């Protein structure tokens, strides 16, 4: 097994260095790859698609102004050839590359950028990503269904578009690299209407050539793609409707190359103990943290000592063993591969004895009874049982409420319903590789509202102010100071202990013998499961 671990800022600096190494210019062109999935593809409309399956598919069909170096979290220009940022950090001027085309053959111009961003933020589009664009000037009016478009976007000429922000925001580059910021052709969107998600037209490395519901989706090389010698493969076929177990059988028979849903948990050890298969497994970090939320507005978790005691009571090593070691124990909200992760932070060590004492000092010598909400899909109920057992060691009797995912999310969004939630299956995975993405909705005051994602109902206004300050630190020269600011915010969050960070999931990508590419392409932090554009076929050699 090959292991790839990028750690924090050091990892980032390293990847920036190696950025060009990910791209094997001499890799042969041609060949095909088969990726399997259990569920049908929901949509390929970049304004709407927001699940792990269609996220990387959309990345291969569409381009935004910004993107990432393959296999890394380093931003690069995609359709933009140049980005100029004003002194105060509020005006971004993007210049488009020459000769960039949509799949329908039309050249992309600056007004396509304006149209695409106004489409995704138009309330009638009902895009789950509209909220990311809140920093663009005029967003509030336009997103409320008033006005004539986003006043902050000006088309200067065919090649140049100027975007004005209502506040400096260091994450704007990442926002422009989100799928939601993909550039789409107006004529194709209007011709397809609501069906654009089934008939997508973008400018990405691949174009859609076949979609048979419940059976397969086929991508073929876009000959006029704006990057030379890409994509490597002629065709990527997504075989739909295959259970992970069945997908694994297909791969073992040489009929599939990547199981999109991963290695099924029940077969994980079997695969890893078979040297031939384990050799084709690539392990990498993931921008994910699994945590227990402690509702800070419900007694007794409104008492910080109780929250700290719970933090010390959980045996994270054992929980990681329950999932066959497919994760690493966590002690802070940020995952290790995220800039701002504190390597030297020790967190709350596992110590049931001290936890019991702390609980007694807080006035709960006899413990108390509470509820633990959990999503009812394996392994989460088993993890909840381990948590339950750990809590009973310090006298807390937690009853498990095992519910469907949507019901747990609904319970978390009510101020007085769920005292504790195990986040498994619903946990936060970053939308983009920036520390701010782990704060606002899940730890900030803005998320502590009815229907929000801050299930701890934790609201620390001082930290909110510091977060806003950190995000206003734009420009490359401030980058280090900004990351430091975020690091201290997360460490201060841990002082209030609204969460018990439990583990960071690792990714294990299994591949066939017939495809290849740099290891980082198979655990690409933004293309999950793999980076379809850069992987090549050995058969093409």
């Amino acid at each position, binding site marked *: 097994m090959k292991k790839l671990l990028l750690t924090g800022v050091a990892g980032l600096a390293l990847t920036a260095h190696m950025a060009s190494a990910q791209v094997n210019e001499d890799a042969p062109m041609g060949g095909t790859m088969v990726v399997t999935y259990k569920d049908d593809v929901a949509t390929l409309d970049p304004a709407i698609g927001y699940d792990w399956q269609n996220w990387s598919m959309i990345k291969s069909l569409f381009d935004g102004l910004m993107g990432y170096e393959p296999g890394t979290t380093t931003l690069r220009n995609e359709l933009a050839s140049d980005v100029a940022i004003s002194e105060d950090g509020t005006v971004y001027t993007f210049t488009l590359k020459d000769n960039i085309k949509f799949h329908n053959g039309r050249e992309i111009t600056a007004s396509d950028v304006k149209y695409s961003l106004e489409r995704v933020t138009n309330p009638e589009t009902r895009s789950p990503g509209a909220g990311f664009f809140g920093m663009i000037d005029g967003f509030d009016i336009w997103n409320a269904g008033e006005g004539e478009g986003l006043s902050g976007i000006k088309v200067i000429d065919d090649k140049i578009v100027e975007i004005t922000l209502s506040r400096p925001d260091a994450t704007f580059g990442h926002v422009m690299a989100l799928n939601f910021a993909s550039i789409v052709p107006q004529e194709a969107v209007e011709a397809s209407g*609501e069906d654009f998600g089934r008939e997508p037209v973008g400018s990405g490395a691949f174009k859609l050539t076949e979609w048979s519901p419940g*059976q397969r989706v086929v991508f073929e090389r876009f000959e006029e793609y704006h990057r030379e010698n890409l994509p490597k493969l002629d065709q990527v076929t997504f075989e739909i*409707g295959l259970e992970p177990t*069945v997908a694994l059988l297909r791969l073992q028979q040489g009929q599939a190359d990547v199981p999109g849903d991963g290695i099924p948990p029940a077969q994980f050890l079997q695969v890893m103990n078979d040297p031939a298969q384990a050799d084709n497994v690539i392990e990498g970090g993931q921008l994910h943290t699994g945590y227990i939320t402690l509702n800070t507005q419900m007694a007794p978790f409104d008492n910080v000592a109780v929250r700290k005691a719970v933090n010390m009571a959980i045996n994270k090593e054992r929980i990681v063993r329950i999932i066959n070691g497919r994760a690493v124990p966590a002690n802070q909200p940020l995952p290790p591969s995220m800039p701002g992760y504190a390597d030297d932070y020790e967190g709350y060590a596992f110590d049931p004895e001290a936890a019991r004492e702390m609980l007694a000092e807080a006035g709960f010598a006899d413990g108390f009874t509470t509820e633990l909400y959990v999503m009812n899909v394996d392994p989460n109920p088993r993890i909840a049982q381990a948590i339950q057992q750990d809590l009973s060691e310090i006298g807390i009797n937690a009853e498990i409420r095992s519910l469907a995912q949507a019901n747990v999310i609904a319970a978390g969004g009510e101020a007085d319903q769920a005292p504790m939630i195990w986040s498994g299956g619903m946990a936060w995975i970053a939308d983009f590789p920036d520390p701010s993405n782990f704060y606002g909705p899940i730890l900030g005051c803005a998320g502590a509202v009815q229907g929000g994602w801050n299930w701890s109902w934790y609201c620390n206004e001082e930290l909110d102010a510091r977060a806003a300050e950190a995000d206003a630190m734009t420009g490359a020269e401030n980058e280090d100071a900004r990351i430091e600011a975020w690091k201290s915010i997360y460490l201060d969050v841990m002082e209030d202990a609204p969460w018990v960070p439990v583990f960071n999931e690792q990714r294990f990508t299994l591949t066939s013998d017939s495809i290849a590419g740099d290891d980082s392409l198979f655990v690409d932090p933004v293309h999950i499961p793999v980076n379809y554009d850069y992987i090549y076929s050995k058969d093409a050699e």
Partner: protein
Amino acid sequence: MQAYLVRRLFESALILLGITLVTFILLYLVPADPARQIAGRSATAETVQNIRDQLGLNDPFFIQYWRYLTALLQGDMGRSYLQRAEVSELIASRLPASLLLMLAAIVTELIFGLTIGIVAALRRNRPADHGLMIFSFVSISAPQFVIGILLLYVFAVKLGWFPIGGYGTFSHVVLPAITLGFLGAGWYSRMMRSSMIDVLGQDFVRTAQAKGLAKGRIILRHVIPNAILPIIAMIGIDIGLFMSGIVVVESVFGWPGIGQLAWQAIQRVDIPVIMGVTMVSATAIVLGNLLADFVAPMIDPRIKTK
């Protein structure tokens, strides 16, 4: 007969109406908010509210229900919340695959069920009979998920006789049809056995034997046709059984039918799709029962309509 037909049709329509109401109430009461599912986790409270307004989710229950019902009567099942496609198109694109699978399963269960039932009845209380009845007991009890995976492993992976899941050619349909028909084969073999034993004990069989007819001729010409009639009449009722079975079987074999569609819609709280699939399968079950009631008297005059 005509009055009976009209009454049964009216009853069926009433049942379907009741099903729309019950399903709608259940989905209305689900604590999950579809607007939040659509809005995603980065959405503000206003965005969610906006989506609720657009979808009419803020209206009182009866207004929502009335709107759904009037649209449904005009053939409009709405659009999927997540795929944004017409529900009727989603179902129409998947229905042929499910119908094909059901048809193949009916053929499978009849071939296996009837053959086993006949052999068991003719060898009554002998080892062959006991063996076959144990087999039918197993087929009734075995979970379809396990049977499906087992068949896949043995016949597709180890022996390589069939493809590992998927859809397209005749060889793709064999394993899913056997898995889906396996349960029915068990039922049919038991029913056929007792029906045969019934007929074998009747006077006309004894008369035929007394006339000196050959045994094979008696069985083929007189016993089997009489024994098979009540069983053929059951096929309509099977449709209900299949509707629940295809959800599992389609998901094991990657069969692109409505069972797979239903399963995914439930996981994602895609209410229009859940309603659509429920209505289509409910209609199929009601039609199946109607068919059973009307076809049975036609092929077996001993059953009377009242």
